[in-house]
């Protein structure tokens, strides 16, 4: 009997693959040292399906290079548990896979069909399965449905997708070389100034992305508004008031604005013309990842990384297709009618689906973007096997409705413009009416429906201006990026990949370079970008990074080799590093000062001390090592303190407690996040302490009384 070892990317994916390939749909789950794998039977074959936990191998410096040494140019792939202490459990994963590989005759990589998935499978097969990559095969699928998994297994590719593997290796190696050298240089140069440790990082994609934010911040900080005026006029017709637009949107001078307002005060406007236009609105394109992230942010406020995580879990439940795609195309082989039939199984979509299936042909709108590996994101039509979380349900609903909308016909909108005149002054009144719902019906409530009523006026009729004012306004600074718009900017500039962009933004938050949802660059970020721009503009140049991305795409398409690109990039990076090292002291002194200031700012509350009005700060006790909130007026005799959580990293938020108005704090440990009010917590703790002491005293008295009165009921029993 042949034994096949299939490597998947995640345990959930492994379970699904095993269930799909097992003859009875019920594979045996085995647990070795807490590492699950599945045994499936299929004719004369035993299929062992094991999984990774993302990347099991990563890059590290060659030899015994000290931890803080730089520059480093020699590297090798190593098990992640040897590089990162936090990944210690991965050693059991590698051990289990290695032992399973010993008995296997055939190897299949069933990780996600993209650069990362191909690389995860390749490194496992190469390093954990004793160079099994040479004879390994590749499964390609876009959904986790049983049918597609079975088809993918039957038509497995005879060898690994080496172009994707090479592109992935090149990306990881370049990112590592950039990241490790530049980040160590920044961190160490600041540390050498003896102003305390702070991890400072930059990278190939991180640097240019942060520069966008810093540039926007500079624009906002240096912005000087200029005045302009708008004319606000209203008319009344049949008891309804309508706002008019003046022909000029902005009037540059006060004198002109006043003259218009005076000229048109109580004037009779004559309807000079009525223009009507019918506009056809084509259905939206199918979702690629970035459009999905943008829509989810707009409608639900989900950050791009959250949307990606939610989409990932829907994919693993076989509810949607592979989400990390840049395609906006839905090929016919995905089976439109079958998917729609599946969607119709849910009552809320039944009537909409019937409207689509009644049509003679099903042809979706196709967008311009393509992805050779996967189609656009679409629902599989399967019903959820578990109760979905609220956010997952929202995202699934958005994907299903978008999918249906792409098959619908265009919507028809009638736009009418009334032109009203008084001498040389013209006013407009615009309205729109939906003549045919088309795709909008399928995409409700995610579509905007501008339905504005107009007064029933004819050409030549006159109407009195009820009110007219010249309103003084000032120009606004450019708006800040939010996670969604920053991701779009990265995509426009070709920075990072669809899979990594959201993560890069998260890293910028995590490092303290950016803050708030309306993204603001912190002083450290401004300083780092200033320094990099001054000494090595190449690092923050989005053009250079974008060029590298294009080169990596060329590896994927087979037009370039990993070695060539690595050699070219190293030739450019080496002199930059040497130049930076020669300026290390100057860099360090500039960075250390900003880092120290930011550290102090981050640990200071905006809320003053309730006892003496001085600043309140997060202080760590030298004796106990515990942290607490203390008052800067300690030297003057103020002894005000508040307790703080002793786990995770603390951040002082801008939000205030709804009960007492004190600034809230966030304690983050791993993925766990706790937001609390130190003052309410302290009051609550005091109250709890009081209650406990009261209960204790009652217990003592009751136990005393028990000894006195045998058989009397105890207070604590009550």
């Amino acid at each position, binding site marked *: 009997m042949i034994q096949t070892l299939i490597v998947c990317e995640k345990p959930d994916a492994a379970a699904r693959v095993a269930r799909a390939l097992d003859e009875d749909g019920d594979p045996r789950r085995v647990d070795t040292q807490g590492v699950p794998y599945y045994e499936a039977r299929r004719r004369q074959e035993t299929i062992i399906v094991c999984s990774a936990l993302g990347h099991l191998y990563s890059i590290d410096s060659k030899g015994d290079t000290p931890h803080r040494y730089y520059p480093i140019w020699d590297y090798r792939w190593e098990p992640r548990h040897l590089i990162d202490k936090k990944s210690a459990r991965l050693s059991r994963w590698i051990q289990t896979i290695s032992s399973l590989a010993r008995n296997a005759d055939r190897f299949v990589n069933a990780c996600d069909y993209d650069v990362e998935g191909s690389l995860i499978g390749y490194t496992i097969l190469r390093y954990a399965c004793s160079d099994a990559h040479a004879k390994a095969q590749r499964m390609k699928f876009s959904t986790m449905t049983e049918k597609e998994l079975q088809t993918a297994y039957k038509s497995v590719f005879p060898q690994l997708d080496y172009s994707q593997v090479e592109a992935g290796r090149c990306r990881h190696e370049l990112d590592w070389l950039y990241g490790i050298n530049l980040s160590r240089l920044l961190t160490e140069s600041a540390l050498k100034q003896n102003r305390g440790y702070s991890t400072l990082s930059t990278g190939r994609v991180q640097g240019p992305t942060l520069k966008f934010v810093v540039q926007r911040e500079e*624009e906002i900080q*240096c912005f000087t*508004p*200029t005045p302009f005026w708008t004319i606000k006029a209203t008319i009344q017709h049949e008891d309804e008031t309508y706002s008019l637009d003046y022909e000029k949107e902005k009037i*540059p001078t006060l004198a002109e604005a006043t003259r218009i307002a005076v000229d048109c005060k109580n004037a009779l406007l004559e309807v000079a013309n009525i223009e009507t236009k019918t506009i056809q609105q084509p259905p939206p394109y199918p979702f690629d990842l970035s459009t999905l992230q943008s829509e989810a942010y707009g409608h639900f406020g989900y950050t791009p990384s959250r949307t990606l995580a939610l989409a990932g879990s829907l994919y693993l439940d076989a509810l949607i297709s592979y989400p990390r795609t840049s395609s906006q195309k839905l090929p016919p082989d995905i089976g439109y009618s079958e998917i729609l039939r599946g969607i119709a199984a849910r009552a809320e979509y039944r009537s909409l689906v019937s409207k689509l299936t009644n049509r003679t042909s099903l042809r979706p709108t196709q967008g311009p973007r393509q992805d050779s590996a996967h189609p656009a994101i679409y629902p599989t039509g399967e019903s959820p096997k578990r109760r979905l979380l609220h956010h997952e349900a929202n995202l699934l609903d958005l994907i299903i409705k978008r999918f249906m909308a792409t098959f619908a016909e265009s919507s028809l909108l009638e736009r009418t413009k009334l032109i009203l005149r008084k001498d040389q002054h013209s006013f407009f009144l615009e309205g729109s009416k939906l003549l045919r719902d088309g795709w909008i019906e399928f995409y409700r409530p995610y579509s905007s429906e501008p339905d504005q009523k107009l007064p029933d006026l004819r050409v030549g009729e006159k109407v009195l201006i009820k009110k007219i004012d010249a309103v003084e306004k000032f120009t606004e600074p450019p708006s800040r990026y939010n996670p969604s718009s920053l991701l779009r900017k990265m995509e426009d500039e070709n920075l990072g990949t669809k899979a990594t962009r959201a993560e890069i933004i998260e890293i910028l938050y995590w490092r303290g370079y950016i803050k708030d949802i309306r993204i603001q660059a912190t002083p450290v970020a401004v300083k780092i970008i200033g320094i990099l721009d001054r000494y090595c503009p190449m690092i923050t140049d989005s053009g250079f990074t974008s060029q590298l991305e294009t080169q990596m795409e060329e590896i994927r398409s087979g037009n370039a080799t990993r070695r060539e690109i690595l050699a070219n990039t190293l030739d450019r990076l080496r002199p930059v590093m040497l130049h930076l090292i020669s300026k290390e002291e100057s860099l360090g002194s500039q960075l250390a000062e900003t880092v120290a200031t930011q550290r102090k700012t981050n640990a200071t509350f905006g809320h003053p001390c309730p006892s003496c009005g001085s600043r309140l700060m997060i202080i760590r006790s030298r004796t106990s090592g515990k942290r607490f909130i203390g008052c800067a007026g300690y030297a003057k005799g103020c002894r005000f303190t508040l307790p703080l959580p002793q786990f995770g990293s603390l951040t002082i938020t801008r939000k205030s407690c709804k009960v007492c108005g004190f600034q809230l704090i966030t304690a983050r440990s791993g993925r766990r996040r706790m937001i609390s009010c130190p003052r309410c917590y302290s009051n609550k703790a005091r109250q709890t302490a009081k209650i406990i002491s009261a209960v204790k005293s009652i217990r003592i008295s009751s136990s005393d009384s028990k000894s006195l009165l045998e058989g009397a009921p105890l207070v604590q029993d009550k």
Partner: protein
Amino acid sequence: MSEKTRIEKMGIAEYIASSNRDSLLTLTSLQKIVTIISKNSKNNRDGKEQEFLFQRAVLSDRARSSPLSMTCPLCHEEIDAAGADYCASHQRAFENIKRAFSTWTVAYGSPRVSDFLEQVQKLPQTGLKAKEIARFLLENPLRWK
């Protein structure tokens, strides 16, 4: 009395100290100082003392805010660009304010500079650096050139 004789008579430190905070030391006068220092250091022991005094004076707070030290008078960052009076970001804010003033002039019909700066400071749309420059220019009207 020529500048050279004045420097020789007074000594460099006193010369710098006697110069007005807002008066600019031109490049030629700076070159003269350097020439004298180098001559003196060759000739006599006092030269070294004077050079020390000169450097100390340059590094003093007072000198830091003067153009001689080439740091921004608002944030004490180094001034990179030739011909700039402020650090890169304050220079940008300054240029924005100057540009905005011409628009304000057209819009309101020749407002006073001080009124304009006060108004700019109050507006919520004004950026932080632009506000700092506006405040600085109100306090140092001679810088509005």
